[in-house]
């Protein structure tokens, strides 16, 4: 094979070489489970990244396709014995792609406008969604082309916005001062879920501050390789939350949580911000971590209400893999559902939502959505609990398509608030 002039350095050689090609990651990778092609596996993608860096392959459609096809679910990181930081390798490769690879017009529109200019801004999202709600309201979906119908099917029937008060006091004498990250998609589509989250925190003895000045956490930028914009988001949020002198910063969306916890790594090279970012990240906790710490669920399983519905739990990728949080949410759900709790087969295989992936890679997203729904239906559960807005939209749409109208997907905050409130 001809050697190409190697591109400017985008991979940290030590991090890239930590992969020793053992292959233990393969069966954890959702896209590899679907295609069986090793180029769609973590080991294969790292091989491509390194070959790209070394000038063994040129940056073209094929390489971009396999990198784009990665969900960024990071299931591979959780099983990698060598501790390869795949997520970071991926983000740096995507940054390289964004700078040196030209995509189709439609992909550029999705990435530059929809994902980067609308989603991270709740007001713009409300505005942009207005025509979508109207189309749905008037049932005009049939007039749209296939790809737009698919995108539209993800939206709930009606918006559910919510603006939280800046301060909500603890129900009992306050034991902790916590900040709440209200999120972008959460604010527009899951307002009541945010309210439920704050109620749960108040009941757990937390004074909750939700600063109005906060912005997007930067996850959507980071995942698509727009690292500079992600860093700008990080600096902004660090400054906003620093002023409040908080014990803990709480987030109820898994995708945002993992990015907030990685501000330290994102701003590692920035002398002015590195320490502040590390300090910020060290305070970030997922809602379930805080609730379990405040009131550890009892280990003994109570018997479930015989008339009650079966309940199962779907691991949001960014909670289970980068944050390695799988037990606290299960303990919380199991404590309420008792013996009505059933494990979901392949609970930690991505549902295909993966942030904005279901817009940019709709075909693979749909395959994984079907896989997830089949597994859910196998359990006989009527309630699927999870911890991320993307998963909720994806699973709800999948359940609707499968005609499983009697199965509901709910955020863990709503589930807990409902059964304990």
């Amino acid at each position, binding site marked *: 094979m001809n050697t190409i002039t190697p591109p400017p350095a985008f991979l940290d050689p030590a991090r890239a070489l930590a992969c020793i090609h053992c292959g233990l990651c393969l069966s954890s990778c959702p896209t590899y489970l679907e295609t069986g092609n090793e180029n769609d596996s973590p080991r294969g993608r790292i091989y491509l990244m390194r070959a790209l860096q070394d000038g063994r*392959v040129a940056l073209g459609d094929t390489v971009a396709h396999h990198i784009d096809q990665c969900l960024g679910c990071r299931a591979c990181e959780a099983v990698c014995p060598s501790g390869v930081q795949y997520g970071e390798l991926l983000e740096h490769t995507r940054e390289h792609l964004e700078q040196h690879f030209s995509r189709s017009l439609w992909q550029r529109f999705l990435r530059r406008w929809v994902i980067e200019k609308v989603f991270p801004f709740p007001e713009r999202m409300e505005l942009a969604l207005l025509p979508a709600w109207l189309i749905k309201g008037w049932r005009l979906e049939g007039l749209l082309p296939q790809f737009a119908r698919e995108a539209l099917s993800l939206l709930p029937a009606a918006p559910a916005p919510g603006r939280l008060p800046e301060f909500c006091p603890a129900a009992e004498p306050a034991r902790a001062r916590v900040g709440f990250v209200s999120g972008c998609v959460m604010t527009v589509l899951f307002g009541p879920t945010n309210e439920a989250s704050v109620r749960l925190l108040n009941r757990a003895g937390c004074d909750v501050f939700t600063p109005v000045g906060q912005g997007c956490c930067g996850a959507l930028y980071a995942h698509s390789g727009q690292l500079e914009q992600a860093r700008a988001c990080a600096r902004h949020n660090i400054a906003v939350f620093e002023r409040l002198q908080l014990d803990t910063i709480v987030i109820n969306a898994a995708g945002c949580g993992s990015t907030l916890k990685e501000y330290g790594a994102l701003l590692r090279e920035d002398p002015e911000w590195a320490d502040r970012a590390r300090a910020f990240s060290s305070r970030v906790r997922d809602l379930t971590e805080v609730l379990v710490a405040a009131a550890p669920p009892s280990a003994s399983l109570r018997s479930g209400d015989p008339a009650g519905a079966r309940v199962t739990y779907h691991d949001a990728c960014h909670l289970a893999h980068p944050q390695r949080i799988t037990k606290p949410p299960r303990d919380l759900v199991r404590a309420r559902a008792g013996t009505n709790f059933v494990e979901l087969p392949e609970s930690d295989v991505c549902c295909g939502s993966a942030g904005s992936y279901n817009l940019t890679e709709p075909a693979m997203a749909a395959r994984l959505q079907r896989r997830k729904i089949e597994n859910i239906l196998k359990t006989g559960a009527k309630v699927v609990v999870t911890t991320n807005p993307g998963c909720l939209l994806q699973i709800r749409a999948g359940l609707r398509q499968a005609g499983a109208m009697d199965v509901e997907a709910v955020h863990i905050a709503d589930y807990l608030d409902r059964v304990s409130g």
Partner: protein
Amino acid sequence: MTTESPTILSAAVLDALGEIVGRDNLVYGPEELLVYECDAYTIEKQLPNVVVLPRNTAEVAAVVRLCAEHSLPIIPRGAGTSLSGTVLAVTGGVMIALTRMNRILQIDYRNRRALVEAGCVNAWITQAVKARGLFYAPDPSSQSACTIGGNVATNSGGPHTLKYGVTTNHVLGFEMVLPDGEVCWLGTRPEGGEDVAGFDLRGAFIGCEGMFGVVTRVLVGLSRAPQSFKTMMGVFESVDEASQAVSDIIAAGMVPGAMEMMDQLITQAVEAAYHFGFPLDAGAVLIIELDGLAAGLERQAARVIEICRANGAREVRLAKTEAERLELWKCRKRAFGAIGRLSPNFLTQDGVVPRSKLPEIMRFIRACSERQGLRIPNVFHAGDGNIHPLILYDERDPEQVRRALAAGHEILAKCVELGGSVSGEHGIGVEKIDFMAIQFTAADLAAMQMLRRVFDPGQRCNPHKMFPGSKRCSDFAPKKQAAA
């Protein structure tokens, strides 16, 4: 790049392959073929001409038939976790990856057997049946990724081999595609009785490293999961003392499910990865697992602890909960991968010595490490004397690669000299070809070749493996590529 002219694949054959499996299930562009240039043994690399991803036995048979018509080499491949280059496309050829044939087809609880496709991941079988108190016994360290087809081809073992045996003891029969494209079944059929009359061709096939044909479906036996476990970790000052404890435990008439040893270097790497609480200054850590009926296990455990103490163990810790026990095994099973924290590349050997010679071979490895100036951590199946020295090197430095290969050769030669063998479970592949002539006589090797030619007269199926005189990638030592 090879001493034999590389395979040439015409556009017409490529089209025909595409018609069989669908164009989407062909991998043929140079960028996409790259990752298929090696398995987990990364010293030698060669691109196949094409990788096909069939969906069922009929597609496999059609692909194999086409290859027979055009005299093309076939390289069957599972997850590519082999550590000896068993799935290297030495002169190119058609790689048949069975990764899309990964289903569990039937579970027969009454007869305790399961029918699975060849690309089914080893650990999935146990996951599927554990709720019914069963498990699939062979447990190679790569079991979370490696496939049953690959296990059959290499007769894989694992930590629990000591008590439960290897793949051949748990595979009842399988469907395979012969190198001419004929489909046949060897051994017990899914609906058949366990005893099969005639030659045990099933037994002959297992461990053939893909040279007799392509396995497509496998009937595995399931075992009753032990009622109870006692899993202990003994901390010793030296490998010598730990080895003596292993011999004494067996001499006392006990057969633990597993006895695994980790030396100081690997213990430190594993501790960095998993934070189990291994002591960083220990000379050796021995993991001993007793399993079986709960009655009497307590007494055996006490006896094991006594023997460890008598051999100078400074501490013997018993896993108190099932979670703690699983965590301990996770550390052991992923030890190879944890090497990435110490070095960009490693070469592992898989020699076997009589159990009583463990202290001697470990001393030899230490001396070899000093002589070659390379670190060599060890993690191995102490119970059956199967060693795994992990020779650390950086492939970007040609001198280190040369010394790593030299160290590997010295260690294996010593194993044979001590009355052992060059491979316990990883297979010969391309890596250990040169040792076959040391281990076996010319007559032994000729007999094996005769058997091979019965199945594959054209010697096209996974060619250039196992037998001395096979072609190798001529410049297999250091290449300039860093993308390993």
